[in-house]
């Protein structure tokens, strides 16, 4: 049996301990403003890494991530809403529901599960499409979900949204879920299943001819992606403490797509890098925008950067490569090609 104490595992454990220490220090020293930005980084890592399953690894370009976030966000909000707020906002729902308050962690998981359950029939329909048609169909899904959120008054309260949630999302939940997402995505991608995903992306006809169940692979990737999308939506809802239909707008989907594209779709560590950069950069830019009173400038810069990326570095910062911290402190490997061998 292989020893569990490998160099890789030691580095991994060291990294986790370091993360916990850093988060502890941040939690104790930073003010609310910076804590919220850090939480957002964790949430966006969950969202970007999970969108990577479809858009990056399976090659199914989805614009519907915010739809699954909305499902997770609304579901969890309904489950955790404090009794006092419930009596005011959800008077039309059955009594048993009004008295059932779920703890936040459970509600987060429920949000994810419901998103995944809805992703099954949706996937059965939209995944019959590929490429551009899939992109427009998933954009349509987002618009349909938003319409329901805006019009299903007894449950979602329409345009008024749900408010008065407890601010349950903290650094630990945000980064806890980020670590879980990265772990799950990494294990999926580096498994026979993941190799099938990449085969489907690179050449679905060839993959099918080698016995890969193309549709099943795409469907599972879509559902897993939706699960973490729902979780991310739940985390976001409990950071904002109030959600309305515009919370889960096309802008949100677009932001996550930008994170993925800039980090490098097809790289797990790339999506983490993209999420970090594209959480911090807009904050800085918006600050400048306000200071100099130039509305729209932050979005202009981001859009221009995105176009420049598409023209000059289409594969994003990381492309299909991964960062392997466990090899950083090693002497030069004996076979130089082993580390960054492209996954073909």
């Amino acid at each position, binding site marked *: 049996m292989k020893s569990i104490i490998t160099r890789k595992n030691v580095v991994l454990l060291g990294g986790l301990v370091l993360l916990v220490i850093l988060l502890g220090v941040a939690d104790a020293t930073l003010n609310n403003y910076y804590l919220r930005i850090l939480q957002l980084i964790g949430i966006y890592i969950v969202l970007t890494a999970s969108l990577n399953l479809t858009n990056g690894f399976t090659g199914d*370009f989805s614009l519907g991530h915010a739809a699954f976030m909305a499902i997770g966000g609304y579901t969890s909000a309904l489950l955790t809403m404090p009794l006092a707020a419930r009596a005011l906002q959800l008077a039309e729902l059955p009594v048993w529901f009004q008295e059932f308050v779920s703890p936040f962690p459970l509600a987060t998981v429920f949000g994810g599960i419901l998103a995944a359950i809805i992703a099954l029939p949706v996937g059965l*329909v*939209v995944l*019959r*499409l*590929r*490429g*551009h*048609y899939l*992109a*427009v*169909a998933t*954009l*349509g*899904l987002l*618009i*349909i979900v*938003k*319409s*329901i959120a*805006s*019009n299903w008054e007894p449950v979602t309260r329409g345009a008024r949204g749900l408010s008065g949630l407890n601010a349950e999302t903290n650094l630990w939940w945000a980064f806890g879920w980020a670590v879980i997402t990265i772990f799950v995505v990494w294990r999926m991608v580096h498994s026979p299943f993941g190799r099938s995903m990449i085969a489907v992306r690179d*050449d*679905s*006809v*060839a993959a099918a001819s080698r016995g890969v169940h193309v549709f099943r692979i795409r469907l599972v990737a879509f559902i897993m992606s939706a699960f973490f999308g729902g979780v991310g939506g739940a985390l976001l809802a409990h950071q904002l403490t109030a959600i309305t239909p515009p919370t889960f707008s*096309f802008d949100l989907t*677009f932001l996550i*797509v930008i994170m993925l*594209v800039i980090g490098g779709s097809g790289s797990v560590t790339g999506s983490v890098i993209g999420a970090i950069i594209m959480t911090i950069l807009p904050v800085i830019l918006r600050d400048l925008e306000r200071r100099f009173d*130039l*509305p*729209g*400038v932050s*979005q*202009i810069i*981001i*859009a*221009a950067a*995105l*176009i420049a990326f*598409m*023209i000059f570095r*289409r594969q994003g910062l990381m492309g299909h490569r991964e960062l392997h911290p466990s090899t950083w402190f090693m002497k030069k490997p004996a076979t130089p090609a082993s580390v960054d061998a492209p996954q073909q």
Partner: protein
Amino acid sequence: MTMNYILQQLVNGLALGSIYALLAIGLTMVYGILRLINFAHGDLMMLGAYVSSIFISATVVPILFAVMIPTLLMAVMGLIVERTAYKPLRGAPEVAMLITSLGVSRLIQNSTVLALSPQPRAFSLPGDLTKTMNVGGIRFTQLDVLTFALVIVLMVLLTLYINRSKTGMAMRASSENLQAARLIGINVNWAIGAAFVLGSALAGTAGFLWASRYGIIDPFMGFLPGVKAFVAAVIGGIGSIRGAVVGGVLLGVAEIGFVGFLPPEFSGYRDAFVFTLLLIVLLVRPNGLFGASEVERA
């Protein structure tokens, strides 16, 4: 429900559908050649509406300018967008072009926010255009008549141009098979440029019509009509101009019908209805009404 009510809804649907048709033509020409969903197309319509609003508010210039100037300016704008953002991406994967067009869309919207304001502004037509006429109990505004006339004239001109001119022939060849067109010496960049110029010009016209119909303009008004027009192009059969027109008109009539004939509590779902329609069409008849089939290539 009287016959008159049904006919009235039909008129309204045709008017909305005509605007979708104008937008869909540009989208379908570009998609036919480049396999690009130009998400920025609706934003050119928005720019056209803003340009038009300058001439609408000045009482001394004839209304004709409010239609022609945005049409011409957007033709130029379309070419600029194509040459700066899309041309460097020739041969790039579909998704790269799609993401770029989303970026361009965002760039245009926020440049408008920066240059003007994010606030909506009123777009009020001179009185005689909004005057209603009563023909057999159905009310038309002069704007409706202008819309139909404009769309029909533009459609005829465009069809003639595409079918008779050399550039039109180059466009059709490029749409049929870009590689083969290049091989036999067709200047495909010229054909692509022409598709953008013509399509964007129509988007400029559509900007005037859309703003006149709804009386209000804002920097984000173009995105959803643009995407819906793509839905129309898909319904008609992507790549086919005839399909874009038929798809646009059908979508407009269906959307107005959905709002006009169902109980009012459904009207909030009109956007959802459009995209449900798209899903049904894609599943039942993925090539649309007039589209050629597209086999997945290995």
